[in-house]
């Protein structure tokens, strides 16, 4: 489809020098953006203009630009990953915007994800949760043949659905309680669905939930907002599974 040119856009973006500084919105104009341009390329172009004008460019996280590494974030016009469904910010294209539009860009907002600079936040709280139990305890070597444990296609597919989480944090940013339940439940479900992971399922759920609480994420009140904005379609059915595993662990205590 032929691309059009967006003659003028107004970009209202959160700027914050560092974690301690007070942030505020700055407004920039940008002209002649092709609708075939990706959203992050639009920011690249804006940054090039800022640099040429002697201003420090806007800092934002990104890497693969293919929707798989989970590094890009951004709250765009009030939506995590912007105004399109089932995609990450790096997959968003400018054809989703009208000429003359004002676009508001903010970082993820959550107590557990403090701002580092501009649009970049610190998501190490996610790492800590995974380090507490998001694995199967096997060492390298000495494992059985790959075909020794048959796994039904349905179970493998369901595990894969949950394992597709990219750890972006959109669920936390979207949730009014800043809960990390969707993220945690995705990992717990992925591993609990497989026979190799079943063995430690209860213990895993318990330690990950404990760490999640410790890191300052909020409670889940089942609003379902996270599921809507998750770029990978992680289902809130996983949260129900996590709750079941957690209950089992508690009963065992």
């Amino acid at each position, binding site marked *: 489809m032929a691309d059009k040119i967006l003659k003028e856009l107004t970009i209202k973006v959160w700027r914050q020098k560092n974690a301690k500084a007070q942030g505020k919105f700055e407004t920039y104009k940008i002209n002649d953006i092709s609708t075939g341009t990706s959203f992050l390329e639009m920011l690249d172009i804006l940054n090039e203009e800022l640099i040429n004008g002697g201003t420090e460019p806007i800092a934002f996280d990104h*890497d693969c630009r293919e929707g798989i590494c989970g590094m890009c974030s951004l709250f765009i016009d009030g939506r995590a990953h912007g105004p399109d469904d089932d995609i990450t910010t790096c997959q968003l294209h400018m054809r989703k915007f009208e000429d003359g539009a004002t676009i508001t860009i903010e970082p993820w907002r959550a107590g557990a994800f403090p701002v580092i600079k501009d649009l970049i936040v610190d998501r190490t709280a996610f790492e800590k949760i995974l380090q507490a139990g998001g694995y199967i305890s096997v060492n390298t070597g000495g494992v059985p043949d790959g075909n020794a444990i048959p796994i039904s296609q349905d179970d493998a597919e369901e595990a894969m659905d949950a394992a597709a989480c990219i750890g972006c944090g959109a669920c936390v940013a979207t949730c009014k309680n800043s809960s990390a339940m969707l993220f945690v439940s995705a990992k717990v479900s992925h591993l609990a669905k497989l026979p190799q992971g079943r063995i430690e399922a209860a213990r895993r759920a318990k330690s990950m939930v404990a760490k999640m609480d410790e890191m300052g994420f909020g409670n889940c009140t089942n609003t379902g907002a996270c599921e809507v904005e998750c770029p990978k379609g992680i289902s809130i059915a996983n949260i129900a599974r996590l709750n079941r595993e957690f209950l089992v662990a508690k009963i065992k205590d």
Partner: protein
Amino acid sequence: MTVLNSKIPAGPLAEKWSNHKAAIKVVSPANKRKLDIIVVGTGLAGGSAAASMAEMGYNVKAFCYQDSGRRAHSIAAQGGINAAKNYQNDNDSVHRLFYDTIKGGDYRAREANVHRLAEVSGDIIDQCVAQGVPFAREYGGTLSNRSFGGVLVSRTFYARGQTGQQLLLGCYASMNRMIGQGKIEMHERNELLDIVIIEGKARGIITRNLVTGEIERHSAHAVVIATGGYGNVFFLSTNAMGCNGGAAWQAYKNGACFANPCYVQIHPTCIPIHGEQQSKLTLMSESLRNDGRVWTPKKKEDAIKLQKGQITANDIAEEDRDFYLERRYPSYGNLVPRDVASRAAKERCDEGFGVNETGKAVYLDFKYSIERLGKDVIEARYGNLFQMYEKITASNPYELPMQIYPAIHYTMGGIWVDYNLMTNVPGLFAIGEANFSDHGANRLGASALMQGLADGYFVLPYTIGDYLADEIQVPRIDVNHQEFIKKEKAVTDRMTRLYNIKGTKSVDSFHKRLGHIMWEYVGMARNEDGLKLAIKEIQTLREDFYKDLRVPGDYDAMNIELEKAGRVEDFIDLGELMARDALDRKESCGGHYREESTTEDGEAKRDDQNFTYVSAWEYQGEGKAPVLNKEELVFENVKLTQRSYK
């Protein structure tokens, strides 16, 4: 000149690795606890190595530039991972995988390394399954396989179109377990900028903390580089934005040889460039060529109308379509290897038959397979890829053919290593895409993931012991040693120099200029005049860079422009070395195509008489020409033949 010893063990090919393992030294558990290892990079290679070595008892310090180890670019691999399991009973074997890889690499890799890779490939799958990688399964519950380009068996394991992601999350989970137990010290957003050598041995690294801007010193008994490939020399590629050659380049500047820098893989099926302002190219999986037919118009006037947007592909009559791959390569057709398909697309576009407004695109058409198999079948096979294509291009591939064009994808060249994966600098190791070892002049699909995990799970954890066994008396390395102080100062000087140029042009503007030079002269087709010109132009670019670079923001804080400036500085030097290497290699082989070395009908022509060697370049100091060392390749088990896909 350095004498390179590849340390390939003696004995029959199939016994080399077992004999070698039996012969090398082992470190006791009590001593492992006293030894520190730095692993730079948390992709499949670095992540698997860090986890395995920590499990064995070593103290590991791991580094990555992203905010999480899980985001290494291995995450983006789509297609799959090879292993000689012979689960399909199609007569696959270690020897067949070995042979396919040697041949696919156009006979420019070491037999012994490749055979070892094939030997350990099966263990990788077992390991990943044990970690909970949700590979695709058959109804009976066994593992499923698909086939990939350049081979006759089905040996590729996959997890939907997200194999790299799932494999990486597997070794990242193992890393997390070790981080939780305090056996791995993880440093995210931390970039290697130099390597510390004390009395000839690698003893540590200097990094920049990307959050605070602080320069840090980290010490260890051995340093492992697992920082991936350098395809971003070309600015536009399928690599992630942060992928860089910096760590490999610092290894080179500290004495490690850089091998075969000119071997670059160009992937034929990527989404074409849409304009000057593009930052990144997206890969469309190789698997699409199984059901898509590649074509351009036969008539120039049709091409011109397509370029002007006056007609669409569907307006072109059947008899006016040129299925040029089927025409030129009747036996392999649309499934010729990557290098051949890429060159053929370029040839058509250079002749003026390109199909989009830039003239740099060809069609990949699913109309015929939809007619043959039905839309449902095609949707089941490629639905997610079609959707991704439509999101990016706003064009529906069920109705109009996809537009594709080749793009830089992978670098076969890298840091020279011996059979133990150690560079010629003692204590400095290189694994994964960062080393040069297993793919020769061209990599087969689904073999990079295999190599990264082979290196990290099953090779390095053994071979590093052979080196460290002699280091057990060495106490923890002191970061206040004068070499650390010296190197830290060198890094500070380097970064402040870049910061203080205070010119007028952004880092990206220089990177784009470099990319243009590289793509034009050191890309898909190379010749002597072009390569010489490239070297000159890169030298001019370097002068301009040091005169006119602008790095805004604060020096001692998070500064993304400063990060990029360091990377581009290294890319400029690396680009020049690539051109030099391409100039030296007067033959065509694999991804390296010299226009002077072709057959009568324009196919690549290897010159085994004169070029059956690994080029290992050795740094001689700033502004001095590097020295070329040659490691002769010896083939005792395969017969060298000219590849033909006609």
